């Protein structure tokens, strides 16, 4: 098993509440069930509107592939994962490209996933992935942070 300690984010585009709940539950179960280092256990935060989240863990690489997300969506929708399409856009938040993958079916975009610092070739280090995630949060602070002084 190859593992990657990275950050990824999801954004709900058209999942209903039940579908979104099933997806989030599945994603929160990723990563090791126990680990001496808290950073390696799956942990997350949710955007203020509740429609996006960021996850970090020491992930099994096989669990965070495009096909793995299609399998999850297929299970949630009760359809063949092969009927779920995707397109990829590359975005640079800080120094490395991140793949922003939009999953769709029947002409509707349902889910967007961003792999911070990973563009499909070399995996980023944990710090590189974090740097991209932090830069993303800075660029989208209004959606993720309220001012709590």
């Amino acid at each position: 098993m190859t593992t990657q300690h990275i950050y990824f984010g999801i954004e709900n585009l058209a999942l209903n509440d039940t579908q979104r709940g099933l997806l989030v539950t599945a994603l929160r179960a990723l990563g090791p069930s126990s680990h001496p280092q808290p950073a390696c256990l799956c942990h997350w935060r949710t955007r203020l509107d509740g429609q996006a989240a960021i996850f970090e863990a020491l992930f099994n690489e096989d669990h965070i592939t495009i096909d793995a997300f299609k399998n999850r969506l297929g299970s949630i929708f009760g359809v063949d994962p092969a009927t779920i399409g995707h397109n990829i856009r590359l975005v640079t938040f800080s120094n490395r490209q991140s793949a922003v993958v939009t999953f769709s079916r029947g002409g509707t975009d349902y889910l967007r996933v961003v792999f911070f610092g990973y563009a499909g070739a070399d995996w980023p280090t944990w710090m590189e992935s974090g740097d991209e995630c932090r830069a993303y949060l800075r660029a989208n602070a209004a959606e993720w942070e309220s001012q709590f002084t």
Partner: protein
Amino acid sequence: MTLPLTGTGPSAGGSYAGKVLSYSPIAYWPQWEPSSAVAQCLVNSAQNGTYVGVTLGQPGIGDGRTSPFYDGVLDYADVYSVPLRDAFSAVLGSVHGWFRVFNAGVWADAAARYVFLLAADGNNRILLQRTGVNNDLGAYYIAGGAISSTFTVACGGRTDWLPFAMTWNTVANRVRFYIDGAQVGADVGGLGVWVGNLANGWCELGSYNSAPNQPWHGYLAHMAVWDRELTLGEVEDLAVV
């Protein structure tokens, strides 16, 4: 014979943790665990906290111990407990600890980031944060919904460990804030009336809440709480490893 400045603290020898404990805090999380999700409280294990996401075992303040790294994205330590709630006093108290930003860029990223929060709710809070204003550190005693006391310190560029202390005394109507063992500005009064007890979800190290919003990006160590005002001498002593 009483030693000046050191109280009963073993400044001439012994561990830094021993020094902190000698001043009888009501809670003390050194955050030196090499592994585990438990942020151990050396005063009362029933006040142990819970780490979420931190990377343990990082360089410490120079006392031979380690500290956790908070990633500025998802990491915090929840330190609420019923014993802490019951021991805490919003009338008279202090917090002392050490923080260090990950790099100088943290002071310039325009992101508010919490060092600690002890609160009953949004209207009754004691906190220290790197404010949303670049280079500024802000300490607040907020009671009854009013920001009763604010201290702002320009810390831009500081990437070393910084010891801080905040004390409050509502009877004497004053809040004091210290950095590097020295008081920042004058005493501030005009304190509001604190309402409520410390509450679950409102006692955090390294974030505003368990969302986590405004997460710290860097290192924290040796966070301790008292139910009395630390003296200048004690603060000076605690600022020395």
